[in-house]
């Protein structure tokens, strides 16, 4: 008897909730989703290494806007790069950035990540988090940009150090000395080296 009333009531609730979900989700919620999933994967020590690697990669790639980050990492040099160089760079940089980001999270995350809140400015936002680690609490800020219904990360700032600006400064110097070809070659070698060393987990 009671069920009969309960079902239409639920339907009503769902209908009432529908227009609300149409608004873009909060940046902090989307970051939380990704970061929590990354940490859960990193903590799952029993998992097959190859499988974990693939899942981590999928998570990060779904949330990071590697194309935009690539443009910023090259700065001025983006404009002078040929289309082939650009797409080569995007692919290499995505790999390296993924390694770096996951590496940082793995290093710093002991217990928990605290989500301190967000600052929104139209299509852009910043999500403040804090990683509780051995020595201190490390502030990590995600800069995100709205594309359609999703917020995409275009920079990660760890303890005041922007990853993209950090890459940009190094790459700029490498390009100045060795040219775009030299940079791409270095990146290829580094990725190979990282892949090969992944066999042994550090103790």
């Amino acid at each position: 008897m009671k069920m009969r009333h309960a079902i239409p009531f639920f339907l009503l609730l769902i209908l009432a909730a529908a227009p609300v979900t149409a608004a873009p989700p909060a940046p902090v919620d989307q970051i939380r989703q990704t970061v929590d999933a990354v940490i859960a994967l990193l903590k799952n020590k029993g998992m097959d290494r190859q499988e974990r690697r693939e899942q981590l990669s999928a998570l990060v790639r779904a949330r990071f806007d590697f194309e935009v980050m690539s443009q910023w990492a090259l700065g001025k040099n983006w404009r002078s790069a040929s289309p082939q160089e650009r797409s080569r760079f995007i692919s290499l940089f995505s790999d390296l950035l993924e390694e770096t980001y996951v590496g940082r999270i793995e290093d710093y995350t002991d217990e928990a990540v605290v989500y301190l809140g967000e600052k929104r400015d139209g299509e852009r936002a910043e999500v403040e988090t804090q990683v509780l680690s051995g020595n201190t609490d490390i502030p990590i800020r995600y800069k995100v940009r709205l594309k359609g219904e999703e917020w995409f990360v275009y920079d990660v700032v760890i303890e005041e150090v922007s990853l993209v600006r950090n890459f940009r400064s190094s790459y700029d110097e490498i390009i100045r000395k060795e040219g775009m070809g030299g940079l791409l070659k270095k990146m290829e070698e580094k990725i190979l080296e990282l892949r090969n060393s992944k066999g042994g987990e550090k103790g």
Partner: protein
Amino acid sequence: MVRITGRTALLLILPFLAGCLAGKPAPTDPPLPPALENAGEENPEEGDLPDDLLLELEEEMETVHIADPIEPLNRGIFWVNDKLYFYLFKPVAKALRVIPEPARKSVGKAFDNIGAPVRVANCVLQAKMECATTELGRFVLNSTVGLGGLFDPARGEGLEPHDEDFGQTLGVYGLGQGFYLVLPVLGPSSLRDGIGKGVDGFGDPLRYLLGTGEAIGAKVAERENWLSLDKDSYESIKKEALDPYLTIRNGYVQRREGQVGK
């Protein structure tokens, strides 16, 4: 990794600094080669950003440069520090890990607490009164109720730590970094921050409570204790970076700039 230098104020560096001061002045960065303005424009890629966002972000993503006129020397010291890290400091830190982590964290807090007077002084010099009173409150509370700083009851009272040093004070008054400096043992620094460290060293209570040798010993102990708690972040940076020297140099500059801006 940038934290590697920590707040370690040392007298060791003064003779070295004096040498650097006498060295050649810092030239500005050589100009970048002119970008081939039109190269990419005929064939805009799918991934290109709309122009307005490009402009908006241009400033935000601008790299910070630091002059590095003694780069070959810096790289040499960087190399030596790297060896010292792997063959001396890190093995000692690893051995320390037999001590339970909570104990090492407490020791770290106590060392941090000893640095409070210097932080208070720098807050005052920067006319940051909230910072000064908070750090002073932390020092009083943690030194007493917190048993000489082993515990941090002040934090529970809402007194959050501030990180201030004389390098930042100079920065607040508009002094630039000068040029990049890799200090032996202590790691990344700059002319300004190196001088700052020397000045902060004079405010270090340990210097007056202990002899010079013991004070240096205490600094080494602080450093080793910190390293034992660190999760090998230097190793990761070194492994991932195309050129760790450049990565760490820029990381240092960005971080210091961020601290000065706070």
